[in-house]
Every structure is written in C-alpha cells, then in structure tokens.
C-alpha cells in the first residue's frame, strides 16, 4: 500500500479556480507552462510555484476548487509534482478533473485545524489515513472509492479507457 510523505502547504476556505490558476493564463495549452502560475493569485502565496517541492501536499479548507471547469487548475499542481490535495470539501468539477488525471484528492473534515504549513505529513491514499509527523496526530480522510478509484488506479480516465478497450 502506497504511503506518501511530504510537507504541507495550508490554504483557507473557498480557494477558487481563479486563485489556483488565474483566468488570464487560460490560453496556455502546455501543462509545464501552466505549472509556473499555480496559486499565483492567492494573497501571500505568489511564490508557491517556485518554492513548493515535489511530493508536497496542498491542504485546504472547504470548497476547494470551486468555480471554473478549467482542468488547468489540476494540471498546474500535477505538473509541479504536488502529491495531491487534502481539503475539507472539494468542489465537484475539480474532483472530476483530479480523478480524470489520477491526481490524488482527499476530503478530510477539519484538516486545516490539524495541519500547519511546514508540517510533515504521511498519507495513505487508499485508506485515507493521514499522520501529521510534526505533531504526531493521526486522523482519517474519506478515500476515493468505486469507479473513481478504478480510474485513479489506472492513472487517469484516458489510461482507464485504453485499458478497457485493450481488453
């Protein structure tokens, strides 16, 4: 069972798609280019894309990813090699786009009360188990299940469809 380890970057409630990936960058089609603008409009987080390390986690409050259908908002984090998003709630289109890209998302009540920016986390996506290695506290998120889980295990929707067609 995969266990991920990384540092947490904690954000507040209602981190919408314009904060994650601003509308003025929508014409971009290259995901490597998208990655440079991740979280640029979150006040105080302008340097996130430069400072985040591969394997780090985005931790957020309720309604993460609300707003636009832009898949850029998932791709910019994925291509920065962020390990995934753990939020108190995740808006539905963002949830779909993450599943379709095999990008880890977990919904976890009160996570922003249990984790501070800079804390080291150990995360087991399959069970939802999260351990804050900095504080020692262990708690559980709702793991992705059903078809969404199968799609994520294949690495995303396109890979899932290819596997289905190849049968």
């Amino acid at each position, binding site marked *: 069972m995969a266990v991920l380890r990384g540092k947490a970057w904690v954000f507040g409630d209602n981190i919408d*798609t314009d*904060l994650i990936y601003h509308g003025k960058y929508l014409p971009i089609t290259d995901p490597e280019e998208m990655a440079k603008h991740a979280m640029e409009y979150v006040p105080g987080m302008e340097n996130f894309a430069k400072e985040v390390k591969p394997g780090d986690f985005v931790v957020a409050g309720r309604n993460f990813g*609300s707003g636009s*259908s832009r*898949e850029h908002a998932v791709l910019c984090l994925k291509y920065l090699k962020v390990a995934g998003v753990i939020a108190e709630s995740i808006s539905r*289109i963002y949830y779909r786009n993450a599943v379709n890209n095999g990008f880890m998302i977990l919904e976890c009540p009160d996570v922003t009360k249990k984790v501070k920016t800079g804390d080291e986390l150990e995360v087991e996506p399959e069970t939802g188990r999260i351990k804050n290695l900095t504080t020692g506290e262990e708690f559980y998120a709702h793991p992705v299940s*059903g078809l969404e889980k199968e799609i994520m295990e294949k690495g995303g929707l396109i890979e899932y469809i290819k596997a289905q067609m190849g049968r």
Partner: protein
Amino acid sequence: MGKTIIEKIISEKLGRDVKAGERVWVPLDLVVIRDFAGPNAVLQFDEVTGGNGKVFDPDKIAITFDYQAPAKVEKVANNQRICRKFAERQGIKHLFDVNTGVGQHTILEAGLVTPGSAIIGTDSHMNLLGAVESFSTGVGTTDIVAGFILGKLWFRVPNSIKIMFNGKLEYPVTPKDLTLFYVKEMGGDGANYLSVEFSGEVIDSLNLAGRLTLASMVTETSGKIGLMVPNDDVKAFLKEKTGQDFDGIEPDPDAKYLEIREYDVSDLEPLISCPHTPENVKKVREVKRVKIDEVFIGSCTNGRYEDFKAAYDYLMKVGKEFHPKVRVIFTPSTREVALRLLEEGIAKAFVEAGGIVTNPGCSLCTIGHHGVLAKDDVLLSTSNRNFQGKLGKGSYVYLCSPLTAIASAITGEITDPRDLL
C-alpha cells in the same frame, strides 16, 4: 421506490432503472467545447488518437466561441483556429463562431437542447440548461476527450434535494435576487455533487430567462445540475426552436430526496453578493453607499432579452442617465438578443444614457476580454462570480440584479433599486 428527475433522465438514457449513488456511463447527446479549454481538448484528442482519430458522431459535437470573441491576443486567435480546423477535419457542422455569443445560450437558441438530454461542455455554467430540464454539466478537457471518443461519460448518479419557492416576487425584486437568496441559503458547497430540483409557485410563474438565471448559479453552490419542470413559457420556447412538443419530466411523488426545503419569498428584498465569494450575500440596503467604478450587465446569468428589457424599463422610469464617473457595460448573451435590443431601441437608450453596448459573448465574466479592472476598482456585476482578483488584482466585485445595477449606475454608488422608485 420513486425516482427524482435526474434518476428519471439517466434511467431513460440507459434503458434501465438507476438510483442515486450508482456509477454509470451516460450516452451523450452533445459534447460542447469553447475557445477556452476547447483547443486543449482538441490537442489532447489528437495526441490520444494518434492524430487521425474520428469523433464518435460529428453531429453531436458543438463548438462555441465566447471567451474572447473576436480574439484579442494571438494565442487565442491560434486556439480558435485549432477549433475551426478540427471542425473542418471532423465534419462538425455545429460551429458557432465569434459573432454568435455565449455558448450555452447559443446552442439553446439553435434548438440543440431538449428536456432529458445529456450534455457536457467546457464551461462550468453548462448546468444553466437545467432550466429546460436538460442534464447538462461542466467538465474539464479529459472528460471532453473521453466524450469525443466514446460518446458517453462516467457519472455518479447524484442525490437530489428539493427546493420550493412559494409566494410572489415583489417588483423590483427579480429572479436574480431569488438566485442570490438560494446561494446564500446553500453556501458555496451546499449542493456539492447534488442535483437540485426547484419547484413551487414562484418557479411556476418564472419565465425561461429567470429560470436560466437561477439554474446558472447552482454552480456557485457546487451543484451538478439544477432542474425545473418546463412551464408554458419554456415549452413555447422549445417548440419555436426545435419544432417539437415536450411534456417535461415530473419527479415521482415518492422520490427520495436528501432534503426538502420550502421558502416563502414574498418578503424577499434586493440582494447583493459582496467580495470575494458568491455566498457572501447581504441585503442591498446593508451595503449602500459603496462607490462604484464600473457596472456590467450581461453574462450567461443575466444576459437574456428579458434582463435588458427590465433594466431598460427601470432606467426609463427613474433616470435615463448614468453617473459620469461610472463605466456601464452591456453585453447581450447572443446575437438573437443583440438584434432585439437594436430593433427595439433598447441598445440606443443604453448608449444615450452613457453606457457601452458590446458584441455578444462572455465579456466581463472572465479577464479574457474587455472591461478589466484596476487595483481598488469596484465593479457591480450581474454575473455569477466575484472571486478575488478574477478581473484584476486588488479589485472588488459585487454581484446583483440588473435593476440594482441600473440604480447604482445612475447614482454612482451601490443603491437599492426601491430607493429611486
């Protein structure tokens, strides 16, 4: 066990009974791309299919240009060209170019949307088509690529909630105020993953334009779709556009809802959503006196003819001239709406009052085109989102009805439309 509307729609599409919570692959009636995210989907489709793939059915694909129409920067011009070439190559005839307007409204007027249809598109406000009882929903580019290839897409059949609005909206309270009331009651994630069924006396008497306004902002509560059983106004519109008669899909009396809410909205006052989240809704009279720099009337939420007509009638009644320090921008949702505003002298009156009437499109709903804001600028908008920095870093956006927008455009500060009557 009875079925909700969404359970009926999906059961009908699959030819078997489905229940909320099931994962299903739903056959699609239409896959829609825009000039934003559309080119990304085309490039991804070509990559996945090795450059010579064929879409499942070219007649079930539509391409709309509304994000930046006509293109202002070369990158977007190239993106639109990618979509046009794709249409040529694939034999896609439903291409609505930069002269047509907001995608969802354009396909609705083109008769491509019917009750019970399943539609996906690269626009988070696709679900406004729930106003004609279509299961339409916004998706990202990977979903579109899957739709192009398979002609179907995975969904979790959503649970439903039922919201009944009874009473009567008292002028100058509008469907937009009702919509903001709904957003406030639900909160930004209150309808997450859910189908919302609207009913009650107010909904029964709401015309198509008002229903589109309400359905559009289900997105701002993270809802998958907001559905209303068509009334006579909607049926007449569908008959005109499609040539067909539709009965509408009624939920079963014993359908299972996660929640049923009932409101009497007769006492509703003009409402306004304050920076920087749509759910931050207050009474207009509580935020009076805030100075404004710009006003926007339009968008997929308030860009119908009826919205402009109501704005015009109110303007004629109370003022006729806008405040000299306020930039007042009107954007019809579609070419059809634009033509009517021109024919009836409504566009002329707006220009005479000091306003600017633009070509149809998404206009100030994104930073893609004109009307961008400076730091500290305050915009009063009839649109659906007021996210921080969305239209310019350090700016402030308030959301309101067309009548509150006009009243405020006249005085230069946020004004309750009742105050000028």
